[in-house]
């Protein structure tokens, strides 16, 4: 069920009292609703991209024993707004000799490529702007527009450093699409459909129903996709195109003000896309544990709204956890050199991707769903995954306790949120 269609249907019936299938102006109302959906998505992107910069800077501060923004608004939460409006108020600069039309166009291409992917993301049980039956394919295709945009930015800036950044990013993005696509192909094989809602529907709410624990090859596929997606998103350790210490901001070295903001906006949007797709394909998406999807579909009135809200909350929680993980990786790891990047992709990730697809195919064919072998496989993987998560949590707890002791020793006071390693 397509929520936009459904909403347009009900609106036409309620407002005009005619049958939408027969009415000649149905498309007008549907177009209006589509625009509304686009506006809602845009608002979501904006409200995600902004605060996540604040989250990133606070998390980065914590990792670096600093505080991060805390003056602009309560606890610095309006920092992103200040950054945005300030960029808006800057002078509109186009370097002398730059290719003006391309220079102007590049940020919009990059942003358009990113934003186009939001259309198929399954935010909740019926919260998807357009549930295309080739959703995955469309997703991979539309995010390739970003490559064109980055190359355009690098070339049209008429700066050799920007050119370096643009070419590097083109090579990187094009290369890492291959392992990402293969990992998602394994998921499509498991789900039997390319539609993202279908993929989420093929999973369940409980962890053992998620695709990531379905069989070992899909487990590996999750990490494969995650790594390739980080590379697609130009995040450290793959942030060569904007390597600050080498290329002086890479492809956006000549961009200032609003145009620069578009690039950054697109990067944050991509962060969400990467996490959302990983969640939808591997971590069960919006599936609520214990509540099968048809129960939500069958509910009426406020129960329906509640069900949708719950599914959105679950989806957002999972995707946010992945976003946090990506942020942590950025501030911990150094970056790979360009030839190491290429080698990693073509010599390691692509063969692994082939193996993953073949292996997943074989196991899916041999191990019938619901059988004993299937349950054993899933149980093993769930236990393994739980163990990894527990280790991670234990490490965090250890560090927290060590910090709290240190703070008590140095300051003599107790703090439930001790600043990390007093400077």
């Amino acid at each position: 069920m397509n929520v936009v269609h459904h909403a347009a249907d009900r609106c036409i019936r309620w407002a005009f009292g005619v049958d939408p299938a027969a009415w000649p102006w149905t498309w007008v109302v549907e177009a209006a609703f589509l625009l509304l959906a686009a506006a809602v998505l845009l608002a979501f992107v904006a409200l995600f991209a902004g605060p996540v910069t604040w989250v990133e800077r606070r998390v980065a501060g914590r990792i670096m024993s600093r505080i991060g923004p805390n003056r602009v608004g309560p606890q610095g939460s309006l920092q992103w707004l200040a950054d945005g409006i300030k960029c808006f108020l800057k002078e509109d600069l186009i370097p002398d000799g730059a290719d003006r039309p391309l220079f102007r166009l590049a940020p919009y291409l990059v942003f358009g490529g990113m934003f186009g992917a939001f259309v198929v993301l399954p935010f909740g049980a019926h919260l998807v702007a357009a549930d295309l039956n080739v959703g995955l394919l469309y997703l991979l295709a539309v995010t390739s527009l970003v490559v064109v945009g980055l190359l355009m930015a690098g070339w049209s800036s008429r700066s050799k450093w920007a050119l370096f950044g643009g070419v590097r990013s083109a090579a990187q993005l094009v290369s890492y699409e291959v392992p990402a696509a293969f990992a998602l192909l394994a998921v499509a094989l498991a789900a039997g459909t390319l539609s993202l809602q279908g993929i989420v529907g093929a999973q369940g709410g409980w962890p053992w129903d998620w695709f990531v624990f379905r069989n070992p090859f899909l487990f590996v596929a999750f990490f494969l996709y995650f790594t390739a997606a980080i590379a697609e998103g130009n995040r450290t350790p793959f942030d060569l195109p904007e390597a600050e210490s080498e290329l002086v901001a890479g492809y956006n070295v000549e961009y200032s003000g609003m145009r620069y903001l578009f690039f950054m906006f697109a990067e944050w949007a991509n962060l969400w896309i990467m996490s959302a797709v990983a969640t939808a394909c591997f971590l069960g998406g919006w599936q609520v544990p214990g509540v099968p999807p048809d129960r939500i579909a069958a509910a009426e009135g406020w129960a329906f709204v509640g069900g949708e809200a719950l599914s959105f909350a679950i989806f957002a929680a999972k995707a946010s956890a992945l976003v946090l993980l990506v942020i942590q990786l950025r501030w911990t790891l150094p970056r790979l050199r360009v030839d190491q990047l290429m080698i990693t992709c073509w010599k390691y990730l692509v063969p692994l991707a082939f193996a993953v697809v073949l292996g997943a195919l074989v196991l899916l064919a041999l191990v019938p769903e619901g059988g004993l072998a299937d349950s054993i496989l899933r149980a093993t993987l769930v236990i393994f995954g739980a163990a990894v998560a527990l280790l991670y949590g234990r490490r965090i707890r250890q560090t927290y306790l060590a910090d709290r002791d240190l703070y008590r020793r140095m300051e003599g006071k107790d703090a439930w949120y001790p600043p990390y390693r007093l400077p």
Partner: protein
Amino acid sequence: MTDESRDPLLKDGAAAAPAGDASPPIEAVVYPGAIATRLDHFLNWFRKSSIWYLLFATACCGIELMQTGGPRTDLDRFGAVFRASPRQSDLLIVAGTITYKMADRVRLLWAQMAEPRYVIAMGSCANSGGLFQRSYSVVCGVDKVVPVDLYLPGCPPRPEALNEAILRLQEKMHAERWAAKRKGG
């Protein structure tokens, strides 16, 4: 925070008073600009809460600039992050000695910055040549090359001093009048 004598609005209003009118009533001066002032305050709050400074360090003051970005005196608290590209920065902190060989480059960097842009001359060398005034190859003050908004003394200035400089710059930004100038003047 700003005292009356420094209030630029009154000065602007006084300058805009018609000639021959010795002391215009206060309402004539303040009122037309009131909304514009509010708008200015509003916009300036955004601009001063997000000062992106260019990572430009020549000499010893550069190390103190890095220390100021460090954990103890964290400039990121005020929203001030460093950018590598001059196009994306609002503030050029000239930290260190400027030689004649470097002077053209500093000018170029400043010119590449997008308006509105500010310059803080950090340290004695950038203020006036400092310890190296008598040298043959040192420009006696970066204000001979770029217009400077704030002079920060020290050799090198402590991180707390640089912090104070950023706060003073914020005050200066807060007092800037864009809309009011256009309306009232």
